[in-house]
């Protein structure tokens, strides 16, 4: 089998002297959705940040489309086609929705930015309506849409989402997941960390269950949902 499109392989490292990740592997295929789940403190967000280069790896490597990007800074990875939506502070609150999207496209110099923006507005119609409002005045779900939209503006090949549904209502969550599926269908790989494990695994092509910074279970989303042990320990029965 060929190597996945994006892979963080056997990653070991942490923020300080203590390792949080222990030989943890996360990968996602082109146009697929991969979800990282696990209990609190399992290193889910850390694993994602490691893939994005926000953490120094002692061992392991990150490759995108076969190219080794382990040594690149997060900014450089953005230029390589990785989009990242942080969990908090993921929008420019004092700027309008449209300006947020423009800032997302900051590194692009081509003249199709307006086109991409239209695509984002088609994906999230409410944003078109509120394009001239400061993003900080929007509701929680709308803010997340702005955040995802901003990341899409770079025309990434991989979109990484850190708990995109944290703090939004179940209805908004379903809506957001629908959009994420839609994004994946356009050929963008999705890697996301989720607290709402069951719902996330339902839409996942691939699921990673992390415990204490290591891979515990790795399988398709469906298989994990069907696995009695996973259900018992991580999905609440």
């Amino acid at each position, binding site marked *: 089998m060929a190597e996945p499109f994006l892979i963080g392989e056997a990653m070991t490292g942490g923020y300080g002297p203590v390792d949080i990740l222990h030989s943890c592997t996360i990968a996602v295929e082109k146009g697929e959705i991969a979800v990282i789940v696990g209990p609190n403190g399992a290193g889910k967000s850390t694993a994602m940040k490691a893939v994005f280069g926000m953490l120094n790896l002692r061992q392991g490597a990150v490759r995108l489309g076969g190219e080794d990007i382990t040594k690149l800074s*997060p900014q450089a990875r953005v230029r390589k086609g990785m989009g990242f939506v*942080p969990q908090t502070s993921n929008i420019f609150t*004092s*700027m309008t929705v449209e*300006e947020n999207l423009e800032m997302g496209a900051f590194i692009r110099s081509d003249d199709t930015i307006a086109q991409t923006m239209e695509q984002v507005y088609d994906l999230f119609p409410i944003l078109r309506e509120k394009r001239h409002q400061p993003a900080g005045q929007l509701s929680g779900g709308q803010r997340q849409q702005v955040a995802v939209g901003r990341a899409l503006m*770079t025309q990434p090949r991989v979109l990484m989402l850190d708990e995109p549904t944290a703090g939004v209502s179940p209805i908004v969550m379903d809506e957001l997941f629908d959009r994420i599926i839609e994004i994946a269908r356009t050929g963008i790989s999705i890697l996301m960390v989720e607290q709402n494990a069951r719902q996330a695994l339902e839409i996942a092509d691939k699921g990673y269950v992390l415990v204490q910074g290591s891979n515990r279970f790795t399988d398709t989303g469906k298989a994990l949902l069907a696995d009695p042990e996973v259900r018992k320990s991580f999905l609440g029965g």
Partner: protein
Amino acid sequence: MDILNALTAFANFILVPGLAYGSQLALGALGVTLVFGVLRFSNFAHGDTMAFGTAFVIMFTWWFQSMGISFGPLPTALLALPFGIAVTAAFVLGTDRVVYRFYRQQKAKPIILVIVSTGVMFVMNGLVRILIGTSERNFADGERMLLNPQDWKAWTGLAEPLAIKTTAVVSIVVAVLSVALLFWFLQKTRTGKSMRAYSDNEDLALLSGINPDKVVAVTWVLAAALATICGTLYGLDKSFRITVYFGLLMPIFAAAIVGGLGSPLGAIVGGFVIAFSELIITSAWKKIGSYLLPDSWLGDGLYQALSTDYKVAVSFAILIIVLLFKPTGIYGAK
């Protein structure tokens, strides 16, 4: 008729000086607030940056005057302004390179940068003293009065003459133009928007590929330009003296905090709030009152709430009220 005379007196003592002084403070506070928004510290060297810029404008003005160049009825200093800004911007960028950049890379606490800025303040203060001395400098030339009091009397037949100094109007016009340009830059250009984005959310700005070095450099250039313009306008309107410019720090900081540190719009509102409060509280209202009330009611008081020696107390009191009740200021977000 008496009401018109009183209004004229009000314009003379409060309205026109307040608009001019408010414009100057607004420009000063804008510089402080931009540096705060992007570099996240209160720049104590701002007053001396103003003095530094003004000193160069004065020297260029002298040079132009010696060559016989003038700006007609307007002060020659306006012609010298771009040159003063260029020198100041270069100096401030150099300061950032040898002083501030190190602490930025260390991610030092803001208070360390505040202390460092007092060091820079010393250096600039010393340089200005060596360059131009400590005595008072008057460098306003051109037409002194835009509206001659005699003309006003002749036109209107009012007892109270309205006098409008050219420098007051120059202050207001230049400030309006500068602010319009600045807001156009911040709202409409890519670099300006990236500056706002960086000030709003540094991490996300970095993720979006915004170059922090460029944002910081642009911020310093803008701060230097605003400081030089503010200092020059103040110097034209009153006079230039290095110690006075250090004293301007307090009203400027107060203006920036009243509006909300980091908010450009707030800085402008704050500038006018401070300027008018200062004038209303430290002006003698007797002249204005004398048109409205019989002399016998007024007695011999000046109707001045505070002597002008306590100007600083006004900005301080406003600062304290803001810190007590709304530390984020009028337009402050966080």
